[in-house]
């Protein structure tokens, strides 16, 4: 395993001027020439939807692909909380610099300064754009936009649209897309899944998709390919991701030579509704705001299955308040999650499965009254009640952490281009802006920043500088036939294993290994065990998988098998990355690297870098490249919540 230094191609200069100067120095494509360029955008979430719409407005010919039946359904819709921007409308001291600083710090100093600064810079344009599109943001009585403080931020910089911010922002991007569809600038291909990336002369020049309805493999060529396919949290089987959220598009790109950066950075959210049993298919997130008033506790005694009401005050362990008197129940996500797992591992978990901790509103209800609590949390209590059939007003809620977001992703340079020329990655699909942990209300901001305000410039620069369209190719090129054949072979292999186990049994087994060893707390022995288990599971998969049906028409099992086959490789890389990063930072906690108070201990001397992995073969060890992170504007500090 050899390390080389990787260049993020960040322009030199004062961080406050880098983006402005870069926009000036980048090459432009003449407006009348833009229609000669074809762009493929895979995914229609906030990043993909906004990119497709904006590029089409500029005059490029856009082909947009999504796995759902409509671009409006991408999983960005599920984001509830809000979107950050540095408007400083509340006049409470926010600025581009402060958002930049908070984001770098929140990412535990594992992100690129220049990228984060640019993100904070364009954040205001996003709000302007979305408001103009008709996104129904919350308003004050005077008609101006309303802001709230979110995720422990000390300024109110979060814009929101009831509990549907993600949905409303996506409907904005989707409507912008449909406007371009009506003008003939975008062609939308729904219910398609990327199954191969096509490379010609060292550049990304097209994709092979599988039509989920007909089962047909289809070829599409372009001058550039944008992957906006989200994160890979479903490697854990259970997560807050949607059922079709998958890592396959990024994984195909990785296998064609795109580097995969920091795959081990996973965000685990502490306030999810716990698992009810083995048939659970997905986890539901509840807003973190619940921790403002709820008290987290478990019984002091092990295996105590009594009802909460029967457990006396002195028998209760308010473990967060006890351990972190200053922050109490409001410690950051990763700290809250890790401690919950700690007490559950100690057999003090509650509920029928023992896989949860209490989040108790008893004292708040006593203090403020049922009505006040209802006004604040009524919707969340109702949702909780609907799913669990338990009434949070009369008995404590039960919560447990769940995988929520992946900060890692395809490595991209300052222009959002992966290590494959012509292949770009946007939104959660790339690794760039959140370091090792993401702040609340920043995912929506990043997706839209990439799509509306960054790629439109940097993609033009790529076209104008490299002229890919002069290398005329079409889907009859032999590279397309080869890619098609390889996809065909893969599906027929999956169909013909003739084993006895369904796809989900493999996915669940993978999820168990990942959760146990590559979850909230990781250590060397566990990670090695995880790699071993995953490799073994993968061997089993290719020997004993059972897929019913054929490759013609809808075949839900075949679709899933194809994705799980990729997760079985991706999971291994996540474990490998976690193993190599012998420090704790953000969402990555290595038990070997903790302070005396059991807090995450960064190792800035040895790990202040991005780890970008290069594929060397499915069963070969990938190569780990390093991009050094240099902090000139933000002072590195150690977190402490005591």
């Amino acid at each position, binding site marked *: 395993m050899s390390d080389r230094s990787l260049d993020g191609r960040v322009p030199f200069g004062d961080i406050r001027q880098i983006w402005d100067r870069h926009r000036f120095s980048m090459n432009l494509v003449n407006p009348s020439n833009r229609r000669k360029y074809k762009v493929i955008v895979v995914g229609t979430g906030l990043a993909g939807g906004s990119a497709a719409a904006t590029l089409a*407005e500029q005059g490029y010919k856009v082909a947009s692909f999504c796995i759902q039946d*409509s671009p409006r359904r991408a999983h960005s819709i*599920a984001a509830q909380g809000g979107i950050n921007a540095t408007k400083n409308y509340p006049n409470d001291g926010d600025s581009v610099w402060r958002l930049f600083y908070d984001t770098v710090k929140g990412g535990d100093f594992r992100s690129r300064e220049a990228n984060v600064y640019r993100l904070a810079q364009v954040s205001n344009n996003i709000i*302007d*754009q979305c408001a103009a599109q008709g996104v*129904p943001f919350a308003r004050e009585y005077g008609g*101006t936009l309303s802001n709230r403080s979110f995720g422990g931020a000390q300024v109110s910089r979060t814009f929101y649209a009831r509990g549907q911010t993600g949905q409303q922002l996506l409907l904005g991007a989707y409507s912008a897309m449909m406007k371009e569809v009506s003008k003939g600038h975008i062609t939308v291909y729904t219910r398609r899944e990327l199954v191969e990336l096509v490379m010609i002369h060292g550049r990304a020049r097209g994709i092979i998709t599988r039509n989920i*309805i007909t089962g047909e493999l289809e070829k599409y060529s372009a001058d550039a390919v944008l992957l906006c396919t989200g994160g890979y949290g479903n490697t854990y089987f259970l997560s807050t991701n949607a059922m079709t959220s998958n890592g396959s598009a990024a994984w195909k790109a990785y296998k064609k030579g795109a580097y995969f950066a920091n795959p081990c950075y996973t965000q685990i959210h502490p306030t999810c509704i716990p698992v009810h049993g083995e048939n659970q298919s997905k986890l539901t997130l509840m807003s973190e705001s619940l921790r403002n008033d709820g008290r987290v506790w478990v019984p002091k005694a092990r295996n105590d299955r009594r009802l909460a009401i029967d457990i006396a005050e002195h028998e209760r362990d308010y473990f967060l308040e006890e351990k972190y008197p200053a922050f109490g129940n409001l410690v950051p996500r990763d700290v809250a999650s890790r401690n919950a797992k700690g007490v559950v591992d100690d057999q003090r978990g509650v509920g029928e499965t023992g896989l949860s901790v209490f989040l108790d509103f008893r004292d708040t209800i006593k203090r403020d009254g049922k009505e006040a609590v209802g006004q604040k949390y009524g919707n969340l209590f109702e949702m909780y009640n609907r*799913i669990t059939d338990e009434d949070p007003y009369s008995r404590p809620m039960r919560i447990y952490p769940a995988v929520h977001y992946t900060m890692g992703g395809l490595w991209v340079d300052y222009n959002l281009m992966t290590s494959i020329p012509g292949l770009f990655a946007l939104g959660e699909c790339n690794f760039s802006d959140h370091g090792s942990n993401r702040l609340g209300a920043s995912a929506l901001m990043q997706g839209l920043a990439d799509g509306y305000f960054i790629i439109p410039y940097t993609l033009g620069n790529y076209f104008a500088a490299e002229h890919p369209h002069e290398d005329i190719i079409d889907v009859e090129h032999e590279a397309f036939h080869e890619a098609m054949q390889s996809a065909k072979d893969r599906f027929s292999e999956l169909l013909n294993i003739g084993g006895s186990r369904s796809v989900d049994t493999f996915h669940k087994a993978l999820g168990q290994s990942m959760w146990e060893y590559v979850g909230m707390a990781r250590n060397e022995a566990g990670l090695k065990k995880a790699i071993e288990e995953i490799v073994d599971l993968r061997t089993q998969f290719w020997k004993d998988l059972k897929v019913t049906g054929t490759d013609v028409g809808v075949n839900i099992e075949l679709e899933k098998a194809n994705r799980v086959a990729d997760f079985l490789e991706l999971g291994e890389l996540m474990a490998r990355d976690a193993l190599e990063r012998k420090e704790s930072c953000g969402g990555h906690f290595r038990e070997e690297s903790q302070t005396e108070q059991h807090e995450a201990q960064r190792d800035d001397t040895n790990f202040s870098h991005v780890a970008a992995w290069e594929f060397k073969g499915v069963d070969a060890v990938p190569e780990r490249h390093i991009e050094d992170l240099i902090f000139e504007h933000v002072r590195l500090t150690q977190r402490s919540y005591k």
Partner: protein
Amino acid sequence: MSERAKMTLKLKIWRQENARSKGRMTDYTLSGVSPDMSFLEMLDLLNEQLISQDKDPVSFDHDCREGICGMCSLVINGQAHGPEALTTTCQLHMRKFKSGDTLFIEPFRAKAFPVLKDLMVDRAAFDEIIAAGGFIDIATGSAPDANAIPVSKINADLAMDAAACIGCGACVASCKNASAMLFVSAKVAHLSHLPQGQVEADKRILSMVAKMDALGFGNCTNEAECQAVCPKGISISNIARLNRQYLRAALLSEESESMDCLEEGSH
């Protein structure tokens, strides 16, 4: 969950090979259903059993499974998204049923929503309606400062009420006429409650309704079943609003002349 609490259900499920073939209701018996399962997890369980018997699993649409993406559908015992108000199928739990119950599970049915396989339907018609005008034509970069366009709180709230539509199509499925008026009116109301949406208001309303008609949706007879099944509680007051705005646009707007030409084209 203890064994005692597991339920056994009789399922009558619509099975259809593909868009061209004829389908039929098929009977299954499923045991081992936990009351804590969601409706879709119950179907997952059925599929695991079908696969173990080398049978074709039941295809159905679903994605986020938290009631917001609008992908899940199904008409359960004659009602879109099942018996529970303000609830999508993915958020419906099996504790709402009793062991021994017979459940009819059918796809959303409408000429404009053809069945693709089993319980999966094609709702691309909704995208076509949006493409006909369900947007504000503003290019990226040309927006004024967000606070330059004040919106009264009441209008912002009404716009949000309408914008909460998740585009699932339950309104069409539940309407005895398969009318898409609730969907169209929600989108029109969302934009028409906002000052940003005024510029294109007449054009939007005329073209979206023309597209809706051309796609073969039925006519609204004001029965409000759509509102009753809507998982987001979209109100039929939006339909009234659409009706009066349409009439005004049709009679008074200069856009309506150009629309007449468009309409001729679509017939």
